Structure formats: structure tokens, C-alpha cells
């Protein structure tokens, strides 16, 4: 398993296990590509294009996800049954530089970038709603509203909190590195399961809640 993790670099996601086979790289026309350095990894690079309402139409897909029709850089129409939308800066700039990609697949490996949306607000409201739906699902970050208790036992912190996604308990290890305070004052908490919780305005938490986490900040 260690080997598998090494092979698959996953930027922006720490401590995540890769979910698909990393050893499946698409077989491409190698002769057509002269830019490689002599290694065997020769892949046909899709050219990422800027996506605007002019060249890209996002629609709700049959499976209730996001599908896309574009005019690609060669001027040809191309459609994608499903696309994945990733934030380039999920923490600091969530509404700009959205990367629209083919989904990863077990057979073909990592999905390629189809294009990039510079500003989400360039698109009409309906589309923006679709984006947000997809993004909210992908970047599921419940906001902590109230902290019932934080208990330190056997080196783990057991939290009992009320969030925008309901009342949950979660476990943290190493609180001092898994609780991050951002420049704008937000607090991000990564629990042992891989969940991410946030506290948007710590100063607005009730005094009792704040007191329970003060020491970790």
C-alpha cells in the first residue's frame, strides 16, 4: 500500500488514500509526442482552454451531476457526460479559477483538465447554482456553530459539536497541527476521518464554546 501511495501524488489533499488503481495510464500514440524526456510515460496532453459562457454550456446530467458541452480549441463541438469541478484555491479563493475536468476512472487513470473557469460569476445564475451544488458536495465543510464538549483522552481529542450539517462527534489527533487558523481568522479543523470542519468567525462563537477550544488556538 505504501508503494501505491508513493506513486500517486495528490496535491491539495493530505492523508487521503488514492481510490483508484494508479498503474493504469492510458496508452497513447507515442510517436506523435516528441516532448518527452525519454521516460516511458508518454501521454497525450489535452489542451486546457478557458471556459466561458460562449464556448461552454453546463447542464444537469442524467445522473443529477454536471455535464458539459464545449467548442474545443480546434473549433469542434465536444460533450462530456459528466465533468468534475475542482477549486484551485479551495481555502483562499473558492469562486475563481475553477478547474473543469474529466472524472478519474479506474481504467484510464487520472482525469484531464478540459478547461478553466476564471470567474464563476461569468456564468448565469442557473449555471452558478449547478456549480455550487457540485462544489458544495465536493467541498463538504460543515460549519461548527456550537461546541458541546472537547475531551482529551489517550492522546486524541473527542469533540461533540453542533454544525450546519447536524449534531456530530468527531475525533482529532494532534490538535495543534490539525487545527489551522487562516489569515482571515477562519479556523479549519481536519479530523481523523478526513472530514473538514470550519469555524467562520471564531469570535462569534458563544463564550462557553470558545473557552473549550481556546487553548488549542
Amino acid at each position: 500500500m505504501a508503494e501505491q501511495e508513493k506513486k500517486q501524488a495528490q496535491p491539495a489533499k493530505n492523508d487521503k488514500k488514492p481510490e483508484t488503481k494508479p498503474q493504469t495510464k492510458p496508452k497513447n500514440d507515442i510517436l506523435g509526442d516528441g516532448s518527452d524526456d525519454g521516460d516511458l510515460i508518454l501521454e497525450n496532453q489535452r489542451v486546457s482552454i478557458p471556459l466561458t459562457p460562449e464556448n461552454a454550456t453546463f447542464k444537469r446530467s442524467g445522473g443529477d451531476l454536471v455535464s458539459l458541452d464545449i467548442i474545443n480549441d480546434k473549433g469542434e463541438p465536444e460533450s462530456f457526460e459528466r465533468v468534475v469541478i475542482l477549486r484551485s484555491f479551495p481555502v483562499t479563493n473558492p469562486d475563481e479559477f475553477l478547474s473543469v475536468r474529466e472524472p478519474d476512472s479506474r481504467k484510464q487513470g487520472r482525469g484531464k483538465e478540459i478547461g478553466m473557469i476564471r470567474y464563476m460569476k461569468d456564468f448565469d445564475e442557473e449555471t452558478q447554482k449547478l456549480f455550487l451544488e457540485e462544489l458544495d458536495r465536493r467541498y463538504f465543510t460543515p460549519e461548527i456553530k456550537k461546541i458541546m464538549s472537547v475531551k482529551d483522552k489517550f492522546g486524541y481529542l473527542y469533540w461533540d459539536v453542533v454544525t450546519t450539517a447536524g449534531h456530530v462527534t468527531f475525533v482529532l489527533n494532534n490538535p495543534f497541527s490539525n487545527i489551522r487558523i487562516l489569515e482571515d481568522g477562519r479556523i479549519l479543523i481536519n479530523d481523523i476521518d478526513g472530514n473538514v470542519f470550519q469555524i467562520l468567525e471564531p469570535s462569534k462563537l458563544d463564550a462557553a464554546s470558545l473557552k473549550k477550544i481556546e487553548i488549542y488556538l
Partner: protein
Amino acid sequence: MRLLFDLPETEQKVLDSAIGADEKLMYCVPFNILEDKFVDGFVAITNLKIYKILNDQLLASYVIKGATGFKTEVMYGSCGFYANFGQGTTLICQFVSGRHLPRYSVLVKACEILSEDESKTTPITNSEQERFCPKCGRPFVRGTNICPYCLDHLEVYKKIFAMTKGLRLMMCFPFIVAIFNVIFQFVVPEIQKLALNNYILNTANHGQSDKMTEFTLIVIAIVSLDVFHRALGVLQSRLSAITGNKFTLMMRTILYEKIQSLSLSSIQRKSTGDLMGRVNGDVGVAQDFIVNQLPNLFVQFFSFLTGLIVMLAISPLMALFIFVPIPFVVFLISKFWAFVQLRNRRLWVLGQRTNHLLQDILNGIRVVKCFGREKSEIERFKDGSVRHANQNEANAKVFDTIFPLLGFAIKLGSYLILWYGNYQVFHGDMMVGDLHQINSYANIIYAPLMYITFIPRNISNFLTSLSKIFEIIEENPEVQDINLPLDIRIEGEVDIKNITFGYESYNPVLENVSFHVNPGEMIGIVGHSGCGKTTLINLLMRLYDVNEGAIEIDNVNIKDISQNALRTQIGIVLQETFLFSGTIRDNIKYAMPHATDEQVIAAARIANAHDFILNLPEGYNTMVGEKGYSLSGGERQRIAIARAVIHNPRILILDEATAALDTETEKLIQDSLNKLTENRTVFAIAHRLSTLRNADKLLVLDKGHVAEFGTHAELLENKGIYYKLVMAQRKMAQSVIEQQGIAENA
């Protein structure tokens, strides 16, 4: 891993009413997220359908037959389980990654099987370890199967007791000493009382010489008791040092031997730091507990108990004065320690951060200077330092206030005694000596209180450490020798028979791989990164056992050959050459400790290493490794080659042995390799095809399958993957060496 969870009653009813008569429930796992809420739902999979159930609702059901694109997707903070049931990719459910991702990865495979053939109703299984306690859902201690909450304490005690065989008598001694100690503690105040009441304060006796003699006797008694007490103390310290040492030595040896004998797979599951922690840290904790804490615990408890009884016997009222504040004091102490611990930990973390930052900056000092960022780095470091200093100051202030207060609280009982005792003395109801005695006892009783609050924490630390140790000791190596393993002399014929292998059983890295190698042949293994080349080598070395099929060497299954015989006759050179700290001679001799100097030189000559070694200041005795002479990549590689060939292995494996080197050095090493490959079966993995120009046959792996197998000429004729690779590299490679290499062979 658990793949069939029990449904709660409500959910079970929902499923029962939905499921058909010919359906068989095969898997059932939880999902946790629905839209923007946390939920406790379940996904139940029968041989025909997937049911998504939340409380008393059937949210959805999907027909598996014919569905495609089953997969999991790791998202930010959660994961999704997807498939295409005909109307496009659909999100079946969303779940928390850390807890369930491995489960769903198995389900993906399971669904793929069912989508093709619904009659395969035997659920697939997976041996991967759970990371959460199945009883309480809390996380296991990292890298282990231990839940500190659900630990069977008695079981651990039994095991540790069994292990202390031979040390038991020694370990009992501190307890005997402890009893003496306690008795001493209580006898001395009694004698002191006598001295005070009858001699010092009794003025009627002053000046009488016979009384003086008696008093001298008392002094002598006190002195000799003290001497005896101290002598016992010395003996105890010495003995506990000896027992502790023996215990640690024993545990470490057992652990280390075990770690060495464990299979690579189980070792790789744990980090180096974790294993080191177990050999050093956890053994230390266990030793400390057994040798120091346990006797101490006994002493404290025993003296507390004796104090209680003696006080009650002397003066029940005074005893009450002592005991009334105790609950309050214990409460105060435990609160106080929680508080102190947290602050200390925070201070420690801030210190660590500063250290880390410093290390980071110093390591990257070239970058810092090149980009002219000194000022901002100074600021960054200052920030960290200031925070650390502030925390330190705050802690000091708090502790320095609380400690004296705590001391005062503990003494409260004594003040009561002082007051009431003096009251009685003034009224002639009590002698001064009695008061002194009672006061001494009060101090004896209070001393253990500070300690008592630590006991639960100490015991739980001890138990956790012990279970971590036992977990390793009790683990069975996955790769094991059979009962009577063969010690064959290997000729070098290798037969790979239809092997399938995956580090996780549901995710095969190699599938149905078969090929045959004659003795003395050189096989070049080619393929994209991640196609299973290194895995094939791992299997050949039997670092892992194949899941299906067999690997035969000279027509003997390698599972029947003793691991020692197998590995001593296979030499391996890896891309990352690891040299141990020690001399070059030691490193070359590693696989054959009894090698003569002549053999060392011979091996070095084969590896083209002899010349550069002699140019080092201390020749073959030059220290290398972390603290030694720093060698270049090519030099290290050649030493590694010498190490691989010193015992004249029949099978030689070169795992990208020259990939990290420049062409000049590669040429040098290539020459040495050519010398080695004569009369040996050689497996060579290489990215640069020129490296393989001497290979008799080439094996092209693609996505875990054998894509092509044959000679250069055959494969070029085939115009398959290999042909394309050669062409691509030829096109790119402008260097003379590369062109020569391929052109000659093509």
C-alpha cells in the same frame, strides 16, 4: 475488513420489504453524508440491486446488472461512490473517507463482478485492517489494532506476567523493601514521641545520668534505623536498576527479533518511526512502570492505608481532621494537572514548531539567500519565537501561582491538627510528643495524594504501550517457511506460472502473468511506471507471497525453498542504494560477513569500484553512510553492485540500477554489469532501453499483464508497445551512446 454490517431494526424492515425472494444480501455498509447533512444511512448490496436506506426510508435502489463505471472518488473531506446505471454517472452515496474508503473500494470490485454475473453470490473478502474499534467506533492507536477504551486489561496483565519469568524474584524485592520503608516511617515518629515526652520535655528527668544513657540508646536506635533504611534504599535502587535493565533488554531483543522476522508487507504497514517508538519508547514506558511505578504505587497505597489505621487507633477525631479535606484536595490536584498538562503540551508544540521552522530555513538557506528573502524569514522565525516565549511566560506565571496554592490546600489538614492539637496540649489532654507524632503521620498520609491522581493515566499509558509491544510480538509473519523448507542450490531456471498479486486483494497489480526463463538468460523488464515491474521483483524475492499461481525456481515452488536459501542466492541492486553507516568493506561484505579481503576486492573489481575506492583517503576502510564520506551517486551504486555480487548469486536483479546516473557513469556501470551477467540469470528493469541492449529476452508489462515477451528482433517485428518505445526513444535520444546502442541491436 467488515463488509456486512448489521442493520438496525427499522432499516432491516425497509430492506426486508424491498428485497425479492431470489435476492441474497451480500454487503451492507454505512454512509454518512446526504446532501448537506450528516446522516446514519446504509447501502445494502444484494446480488441484483443496490439499496440506499436511511432510517425508515428506501431512498433509492439501483439494478446492478449491466451497470458500469463503478468507482469511488476522493473529494475534499469526504468520498463518493459512483456508478452509471444507464442514465449517466450517478452518485450512489457520499461517505466519510477515513473510515469507509477501503470498504467502498472493495464494493467497487464486488459490484463490477456482480454487474457481469449476478450468480456469483459468494461475497469477496478483504483482510485489510480496520482502523476503528468495531466495538466503540473510536480510532485505534495509530498503526495498531488497539482500542485503549476496549482493551482487555486482565489479558495484558496475564501476558506481561508470563513474560517476567526469571525476573519475578528480583521484582518482588522492591515490594519487600517497600514494606520495611512504611514500617520505618511509622516507627520513627513513635520513638521520637518517646524521646520528646519522656526525656526532652520531661524536666524532672533532666540531669539524671541514667536517663541520659537511656536517651543515648534512643538516639542510637533512631540512627541505626535510619542507617538500615538507607541501606535498604541503596539495595532497592541497585536491584531495580538491574531488573529494569534485564526487562528492557529482554523486551527489546524479543521485539527486534520479531520485527526482523516479520514480512515486508506487515512492516510497511507501520512507519519506521512507529516501529522505533515501540522498540524504544514503549519498552521504556513498560519498564518504568514495572520497575519504578508499580513498587511506588504499592508503597504509596500501603502507607496511606497504614496511616489511616494508625491514626484511627490513636485519635479518631484527629484522623477526621486529616481526612475531611482529602476529597477536596484530590479534586483540586486532578483539575490542576489537566490544566498544567495542556499548557505544557501547547508550549511543547510551539517549541517544536519553532524548531521545525529553524530546521526548514537552515536546510533551505541557499534558496532563502538566492531569492533574497532573509528579512521575511527572520520575521517568520521571530513570530514563532515570540509566541513560544509568550506561552512560556504565561505558563510560568500560572504555575508559580498555582503550585504554592496547591501546597497550601494540601496542608489544610495539618493546620487543623496543629490548632486542635495545641488546644489539647494547653489543656493537658495531650503530650507534645503525641502531637509531633500525629503531625508526622499526617504528612505521611498527604504525600501519596499528589501521586494518586496520576495513577489512572499511568496505568493506561502502561497498558497501551504493552499492547503495542504484544501486538508485534504476537503477529504472525505472512510470508512463512514451510515445515521442512528446502535448501536447494539454485541453477537459475525461473518459471512464472500464471501469477496474480495485489497489495490489496481487490486491487491486483499483476494479473495472470506467465513466462519462462532459462538459466543464464538476461531478461529485460519494460513498462510504464506502476505497471508492476517492481512488484514482480518483490514476488521473485518472496518479500510477498503471490495470491494465485506459482513462481518456480529450478522447478521448485519458491514457497518450498527456505527464505534464507532463496535470498542468499539472489543478488539485488536497487535504484536507491542504501549504504549502512560503516566502512566500504563492511558494506560490500554485508551479504557475506565471512568474506575474505580478496573476495571484497574481487567484487569491487567486478563492479568497477576498485579504482575509485583506492583513491579514497582510507581505501576500503573509508567510512560511508550518513556520517561518513559522501560518495557520489555512481560510486554508491557501484558499491551496491559489489555488495550484490560478492556471494556470487545465481540470480541477479537490477531494479533500475542505473536510472539515476548520468550517461557517462552509466556506461562505466554498464561495463561492470556486462561482466556480471555472464552465466547468471539476470532480471533487469530499466527505463532507458539502451541499458537492456544485452538482454536475451524482453518482457513488456502493461497494466499488470504481460503485453509482449521475446527477443529484440521478435518484438521489433511485432510492432507493438516495445517497437513504439524504441522508436520514441530513438527519436528523442540524440546522444551517441543511445543511438549506437539501439541501432546496433535494431
